[in-house]
């Protein structure tokens, strides 16, 4: 269970992030901490640019394996570690497109565009916040959005009424909106 993992805090403190990177360069087993901090970011960056979940998972996996294999080559120049990951993600997506079909937007531009990066940051934070929801709300959100089940299916699975599931769904979204700090309005 991922409850209680740090919430994207590395950016707030570049020194901490630098220490984590140096630790991972000395001992690759420390890479897990960088993964924990950046998984949602990379996934968010990729998921909105590909067609389906399988492709998003495939590419996310590719990016982190590549990052682990090349961690020694990462040189700290003040840019966040995530920027390096986004560049790898963008290249991986372009490679995939070239082998499948053409798309008109180049994700490599998004990898450096501040507005896109802010949006990714927001998505990533939201994904992490789902883990901090009360368990019954979290269960509904996962079944509804990840497993894409209908309210009725979720109700049957959890042994609740449809009304109760809809209520939990509402509460969960309200909670997330609140925890996102009113970013949605």
């Amino acid at each position, binding site marked *: 269970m991922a409850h209680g993992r740090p919430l994207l805090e590395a950016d707030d403190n570049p020194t901490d992030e630098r220490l984590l990177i140096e630790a991972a360069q000395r001992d690759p*087993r420390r890479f897990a901490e960088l993964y924990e901090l950046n998984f949602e970011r990379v996934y968010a960056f990729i998921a909105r640019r590909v067609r389906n979940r399988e492709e998003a998972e495939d590419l996310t996996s590719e990016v982190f*394996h590549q990052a682990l294999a090349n961690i020694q080559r990462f040189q700290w120049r003040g840019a966040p570690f995530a920027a390096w990951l986004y560049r790898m993600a963008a290249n991986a997506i372009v490679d995939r497109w070239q082998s499948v079909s053409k798309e008109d937007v180049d994700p490599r531009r998004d990898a450096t565009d501040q507005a896109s990066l802010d949006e990714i940051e927001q*998505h990533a934070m939201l994904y992490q916040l789902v883990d901090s929801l009360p368990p019954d709300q979290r269960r509904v959100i*996962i079944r509804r*959005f990840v497993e894409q089940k209908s309210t009725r299916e979720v109700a049957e699975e959890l042994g609740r009424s449809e009304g109760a599931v*809809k209520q939990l769904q509402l509460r969960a*979204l309200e909670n997330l909106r609140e925890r996102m700090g009113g970013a949605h309005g």
Partner: protein
Amino acid sequence: MAKPSLIDQLDQAIQAMLAGATAPRPAVDPRLESLVGVAAELRDLPRESFRARLKSDLERKASMAAAAVNPIPQGFHSLTPYLIVEGADRFLEFMKQAFGAEQRLRVPKPDGKIMHAEVRIGDSPVELADANEQYPPRPTAIHLYVSDADAVYQRAIQAGATSTHEPVDQPYGDREAGVKDPFGNYWYIATHKLAGEGKFIPEGLRTVNIYLHPTGTGEMIEFLKRAFNAEEAARHESPEGTIAHAKIQIGDSILEMGEAHGPYEPMPTGIHLYVADADAVYAQAIQAGATSISEPADQPYGDRFAHVKDPSGNSWFIATHIKDVQF
């Protein structure tokens, strides 16, 4: 018709959104718009199972990298014969007497039989174990290079082996003899005369070399190329067009083979194959047509280990050394 409640409106909006971009979006109460906004962002919520699986994959890779141990343990090469016999204890003694084998490791079972043992002959390790129900005896052919084939042939006979042919000079520069040991293994005992001053092993070979006699050597070679990135180092065809002798490079070792004929019947054997990434090689071997016997798993003795059978029935024990363990 009564207007749906806020809760129902929200659910309908989410359902339409999950149905895809082309589904018509029902109008929602303005108070719900920000919640629908949150919901829209949740469409790409990652699977927790994927997050966890990727983490454990990365951790495994990282700990392999951190251990910084050679994926081939000290004293081993890419290929090592794994001989399974009835009476491993006596077999060990035979190899000591006949070939000067030195025992390196011996793991007994409670009943005294040998679960696993390692010996060294010249520059090469040989592994062995007592047969059991799961692993019946598997006689193997070994091409053994020694400094004096005649003397070693005599010692093997004294130790209980039967002669298959007396020492003879071969046109390819080997003085060569053959014996069958009491456990069914064939030993082709040779001294290479053209190896240069003080040497007696041809370039690329070692003291102990596994020699296969498959039916369909060509197909076997193609399989090895696909499964283990093998390369053909040499191939000699017989006048009938079959492959009389081939040297197949796998990693740092050479596997020898020649088409089964006459007394040289196929003898599927056990081969311990050390590679840098057992998981990847396992997957590649399966893709190439091998049958899985056991999937890759970490072993208490410090190896990651998988077992596949090739189409000719040889067992490949695919392993990556991931950490040094003191016994």
